[in-house]
């Protein structure tokens, strides 16, 4: 063996600085781990980590402050956008985002969500839609699909009995304070790359002082859907997108993609 000089490899992939070096409690195949990584990558790439204050929800991501490597504050269930409003108004030069699930953002926190968005708060929101209550064990979410089985919709969600799924992103799009809403999915490499671009764009809206921006991420929940991770991806791509079509829902930013 001949001795060779150490090669100076270029580092092309690693853990984002905005993610702590820790294990998460998320299930195999869960979309949260991917979403966390995308958020962390965007914050790193935009140089925001040291001016970021994040507000996680109550739900599966309640412990996100153990995983993100920047300042974070807990909020009561559904209230992240009210807490974030208080922070952002006091510290307008900081970067403030909320990370919320469907129960938090579109059920118990609907009022806080709509009014913060409509005020045009300079806050960015990452909205995880997995059509189920994950942390509490699989009950119906506001976004649960018609016919979908949840522990509180035996036989599947019946529109006449349980009500219909809510499309809060489209509801928010009609608010004047909202400048950008896009729905993406964490269910293929292509979709995940698209989601990252959308998150970055939403963050940019805040930095440029344009208004409220939200990215909805259709997110697999293999555990509560009772599927394998692979089946869960397929279900997002083949079933969930029929109720929640992917794409830009509102964009008044004037940014070129």
């Amino acid at each position, binding site marked *: 063996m001949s001795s060779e000089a150490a090669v100076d490899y270029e580092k092309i992939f690693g853990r984002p600085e905005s993610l702590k070096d820790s294990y998460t409690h998320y299930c195999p195949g869960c979309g949260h781990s991917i979403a966390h990584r995308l958020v962390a990558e965007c914050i790193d790439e935009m140089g925001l980590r040291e001016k970021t204050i994040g507000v996680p929800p109550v739900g599966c991501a*309640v*412990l996100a402050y153990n995983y993100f490597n920047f300042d974070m504050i*807990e909020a009561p269930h559904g*209230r992240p956008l009210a807490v974030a409003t208080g*922070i952002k108004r*006091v510290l307008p030069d*900081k970067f403030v985002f909320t990370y919320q699930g469907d129960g938090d953002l579109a059920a118990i926190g609907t*009022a806080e969500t709509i*009014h913060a968005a409509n005020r045009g708060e300079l806050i960015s929101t990452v909205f995880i839609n997995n059509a189920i209550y994950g942390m509490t064990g699989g009950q119906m979410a506001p976004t649960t699909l018609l016919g979908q089985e949840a522990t509180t919709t035996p036989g599947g969600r019946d529109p006449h009995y349980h009500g219909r799924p809510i499309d809060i992103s489209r509801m928010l799009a009609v608010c004047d304070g909202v400048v950008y809403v896009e729905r993406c999915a964490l269910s293929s490499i292509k979709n995940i790359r698209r989601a990252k671009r959308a998150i970055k764009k939403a963050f940019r809206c805040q930095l440029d002082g344009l208004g409220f921006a939200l990215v909805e991420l259709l997110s697999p929940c293999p555990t509560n859907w009772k599927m394998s991770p692979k089946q869960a991806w397929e279900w997002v791509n083949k079933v969930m997108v029929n109720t929640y079509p992917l794409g830009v829902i509102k964009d008044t930013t004037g940014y070129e993609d």
Partner: protein
Amino acid sequence: MRGNHVLGEAAVLAGCRFYAGYPITPQNEVPEYLSGRLPQVGGVFIQGESEIASINMVIGASAAGVRAMTSSSSPGISLKQEGISYLAGMELPAVIVNTMRGGPGLGNIAPSAADYFQATRGGGHGDYRTPVLAPSGCQELAEMTFLAFDIADRYRTPVIILGDGMMGQTMEPVVFPDPIDPETLPPKDYILNGCKGREPKTIYSMILDTERMYRHNLKLLEKYQLITANETRWETSGTDGAEIVVVAYGTAARIAESAIEELEGKGPSIGLFRPISLWPYPTMQLRSLSENVSKIAVFEFCAGQMLEDVIISVGDRAEIYFYGVPGGIVPTPADVADFLLSVGRGDGKIGRRIEV
């Protein structure tokens, strides 16, 4: 100045730079005043979409480091209880003003003191306490507002100012304490402002590990014991050698004072014991007073809530009489004088004797 305006101005002078609230009678002059006044000093005013949103905005503002306040009236304060419990658990300072009105439910908009239990017993869920200050009159309201922010910051706790609709509308001359420049307040090492040059910080109340939650509860308990030792406040007048001592707080104490004046030289000698902090309640102070007095007369704008703290304090050391008027009716000094004369006679014609 009107009580509600006194409160708003005192908050600004005490260094408050954030207010969020939702309209509810009879405290609307507070947000109205602050909507114009806070921006003058670089502060933030937000009319929230609900009481719930408002208290959560206060959580955010407090975590970001400023002195923050919300105000409401009884039904609105019920909605804020979730946030108050979180403030206690997260150990964040805030001032919450309750201008009490008649209840339960939507009740009415008349002065009441029916939220004593809610204020002093926790109100929200979990093992916590909230310091409660009960000013009597506009001058004390101004001073107590300063004190409320001071206690909130010093102990990292929500503090409640408990008033009523009458205090909010009463106009009296006030001398404000010297203004506080927020820049001169002691720095807070727990606040969130981005992790530049330091490790990231988190503020939360969820502690799943039972051993850690247990220790957190013990830490809170220690804090509440310290507050009890340092922040118990009360006032007495004419209690030395008195045959009857009236126990009343806030506006009720003002009415009782007038009644006592009216009765001077006309019957039994009467003194006044006025709790100023309702939690911590001046239990030991009232207890030692009750050793030397034969009759304690409790007067409240409700069906009997502070009465329970009096019973805890006095026990059977003295006879306890109670006159409570719920529903938003404000008794006149003459009504209270009649009660006190009845207490003197022991005939039970007005109010009732409480058997302990």
